[in-house]
């Protein structure tokens, strides 16, 4: 209810606040709220959430919210590093909505036992039927592609045994079948029945309603969403796991340097997407904690296989010899990365690093170029995502190095949307880019990047022997010796073809105030804020 406005209140109020604001900034409210802050986690995020539709969530910010408002049957297990920080464990699974799970030996059947007290934010039970309806909704809406990849092409493959037991019958074994169907975004549990109430002939899955409204299944519910400014969340009163935080405030601060200074000053507790160049300095700041984790986010120089000279093996080898690997590590990543030596990123299961003989050697690069019979004064246009320091700086350093070989790189800056579209349409000859698999497995990376119909096989790479090996690795059990052998052979072939030039695999650096406890690093690098507490 608005306060009643009287002339006296208006006059005195205005005079008072003008004077107060002028001299005190916002110190008073800060002091007044100081006590509350102990239970309130304030997080600086880069941009607003585009949608509450989990099947469309793209980008770290959207995934951060998805983990707060939608539960999944399971989560990665975790382990402690020697320094006490927590990291995911590939060999263990944390139960949640699913209190137990079974995977059959042939990996065609996954069975979940659900938590007996699991409920949506409106109090409706998350039982076997609700789980099936959620998967069915995904299969009907835009999430079907993801589930099909994971061996679940239709809802009739979901069997509700009873209220607490659900079985997924996969159409083929998939190496990451359990994780793909119970942990990734397509297994976010939505209240499908509620969503479908908003379906229309034009919108048969009620997605328009879900853009901005939802019934949460996760540990937190949206309390207030001021588009473009902030979102606050409070614990889901029906969640089966209790939260330590009373409230989470996600404040949109688009400028990276601003995010850094508000964290340094203690005006936020956690900051997402801090520039890597700021990390060394932030380590020295009292009260700030920086956690660095070796990730699977690889950076590559890609070259098309569609036309000369890029499809000439000698040219590709020349590029591999010409890359300034150490300079890239020191200048671009400030040492916060590790050298990559394969066509799959470091820190994934099946990565082999002894099959890449190339170091920076311009003499060898010249010899290879001579054999490639390159035309004089060769120029190649390289698109760069304006605003991504890694992309920009790496391309500039590569340009300098190639200039010594007589190759001119013409850098074309563009927004990420343009670059990604051109890459997907396979219209780029050469570019620096990055890719992070959500499942830290070489086979998963191969599925998305190296097969002829892979969505992000931007360079049209094709090698029949590698294709057979890749397809086999997709279906075999992760970690089996036979699969490891196939993955090794795969990398031998693709590295021999110089399918890509691996530049480096970056670290993920998480920056927070020292009193933030309980952070766990997961392969997608998305913080699970619900696990945090303020010490």
């Amino acid at each position, binding site marked *: 209810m608005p306060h009643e406005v009287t002339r006296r209140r208006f006059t005195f109020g205005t005079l008072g606040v003008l004077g107060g604001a002028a001299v005190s900034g916002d110190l008073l*409210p800060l002091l007044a709220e100081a006590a509350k802050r102990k239970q*309130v986690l304030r997080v600086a995020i880069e941009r607003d959430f585009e*949608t509450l539709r989990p099947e469309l969530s*793209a980008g770290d910010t959207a995934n951060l919210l998805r983990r707060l408002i939608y539960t999944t049957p399971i989560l990665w297990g975790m382990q402690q590093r020697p320094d006490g920080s927590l990291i995911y464990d590939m060999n263990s699974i944390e139960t949640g909505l699913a209190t137990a799970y079974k995977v059959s030996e042939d990996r065609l059947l996954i069975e979940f036992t659900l938590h007996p007290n699991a409920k949506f934010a409106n109090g409706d039970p998350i039982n076997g039927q609700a789980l099936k309806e959620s998967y069915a909704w995904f299969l009907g809406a835009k999430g079907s*592609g993801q589930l099909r990849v994971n061996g679940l092409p239709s809802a009739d493959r979901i069997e509700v045994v009873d209220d607490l037991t659900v079985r997924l019958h996969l159409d083929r074994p998939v190496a990451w079948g359990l994780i793909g169907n119970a942990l990734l975004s397509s297994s976010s549990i939505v209240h499908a029945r509620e969503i479908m109430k908003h379906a229309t002939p034009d919108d048969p899955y009620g997605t328009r309603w879900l853009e*901005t409204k939802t019934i949460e299944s996760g540990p937190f519910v949206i309390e207030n969403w001021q588009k473009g400014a902030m979102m606050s969340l409070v614990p889901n009163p029906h969640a089966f796991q209790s939260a330590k935080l009373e409230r989470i405030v996600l404040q949109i601060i688009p400028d990276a340097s*601003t995010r850094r200074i508000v964290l340094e000053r203690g005006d936020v507790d956690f900051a997402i997407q801090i520039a890597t160049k700021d990390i060394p300095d932030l380590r020295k700041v009292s009260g700030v904690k920086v956690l660095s984790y070796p990730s699977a986010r690889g950076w590559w120089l890609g070259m098309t296989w569609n036309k000369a000279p890029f499809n000439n093996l000698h040219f590709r080898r020349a590029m591999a010899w010409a890359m300034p690997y150490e300079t890239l590590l020191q200048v671009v990543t400030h040492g916060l990365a590790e050298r990559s030596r394969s066509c799959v990123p470091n820190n994934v299961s099946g990565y082999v690093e002894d099959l890449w003989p190339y170091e920076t050697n311009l003499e060898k690069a010249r010899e290879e170029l001579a054999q490639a019979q390159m035309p004089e004064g060769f120029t190649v246009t390289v698109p760069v995502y304006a605003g991504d320091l890694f992309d920009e700086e790496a391309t500039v350093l590569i340009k300098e190095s190639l200039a010594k070989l007589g190759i001119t790189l013409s850098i074309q800056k563009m*927004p990420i949307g*343009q670059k*990604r579209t051109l890459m997907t349409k396979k219209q780029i000859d050469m570019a620096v880019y990055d890719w992070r698999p959500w499942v830290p497995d070489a086979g998963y990376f191969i599925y998305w990047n190296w097969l002829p119909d892979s969505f992000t096989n931007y360079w049209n790479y094709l090698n029949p022997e590698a294709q057979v090996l890749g397809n086999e690795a997709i279906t075999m059990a992760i970690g089996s010796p036979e699969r490891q052998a196939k993955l090794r052979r795969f990398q031998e072939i693709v590295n021999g073809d110089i399918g890509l030039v691996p530049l480096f695999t970056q670290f993920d650096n998480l920056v927070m105030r020292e009193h933030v406890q309980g952070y766990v690093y997961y392969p997608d690098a998305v913080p699970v804020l619900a696990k945090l507490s303020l010490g």
Partner: protein
Amino acid sequence: MELISYIARRIALIMPTLLGASLVMFVLTTLIPGDPALMRLGNFATAEQLQSLREEMGLTRPSYERYMLYLGGLLRGDMGRSWRTGNLVLDDLQVRLPMSLELGVCSMLLAIAIGIPAGVSGAASKDSVIDYGGKAYGILGVAMPLFWGGLVLVYVFYFKLGIAPAPTGRIDMLVSPPTHLTGSYLLDSVFTGDLEAFMSSAAHLVLPVITLAFVTGASIARMTYTSMRKVLASQFILVSHAYGVSPRSIVYKFALKNALMPVVTLIGLQVGFLIGGVVLVEVVFSLPGIGRYAVESLLVNDFAPVQGFVLLVLVVYLVVNLLVDLLYSVLNPQVRNG
């Protein structure tokens, strides 16, 4: 009567201008090589998902059909839907416009309050410290990049001295916004007597307003100075001195009124600059205004908000310049009569 006919003619011209602008914007955004569906789905999409989303977003229709649909929507007051926010563009702009207006109006008022006195006092005391100070400000203000200026202010007054609030938006994170009446936090908090919200929102506006006003005010100061110097050198000022009119009256009563006409024109033109500046300032200070909305949309190929932003800015620009022209005729009746 002539004035009314003049205003009617100007308003009539706005429609074809907007139509032309909508066509140019539509063609330009169509030419940008980007796929909004791809941006929305991210890296882990399949070709089937992509095609399905393209159909849902209407991207598979021919360009002319999309433009006609867009135009039809505009006539009904529908600027399209932003896929990034999931809202109608008009709704998004309505939510964000009060923030930008608040920033723009406060900045312009402060710029005028700084620029005109600086220009007048500089011109009135030629070759003095005030004169040189004013000139220095004029040069510095025009040369200083807005983005940089904002960052410096944040660094000094927030980070180092700790006397400015955190640049985290319109209001402190732990203060509730005032009850929504107009969308302007300043006005709404005054109308509802919400002291805490007023203090916080006013404090959060100080640095962004100074950043914009410093640069805008410099242009006004330079124009005022030049115009004043010209007027002060004219015959009627000399005669006024000879008649013993006080220097204060000469400057503020006679010279200033005559010198203001080009300044008023400049202020109208500065609205365009101010809107451009608002975009940058909104990013530095995390303010959720229309400028940031447009930029963030453009970066991810969400074109409906960009088209809506351009049309809105164009309307504001045309209206402000119409008002300036009207003010011009008030200041100088010769213009009206001529």
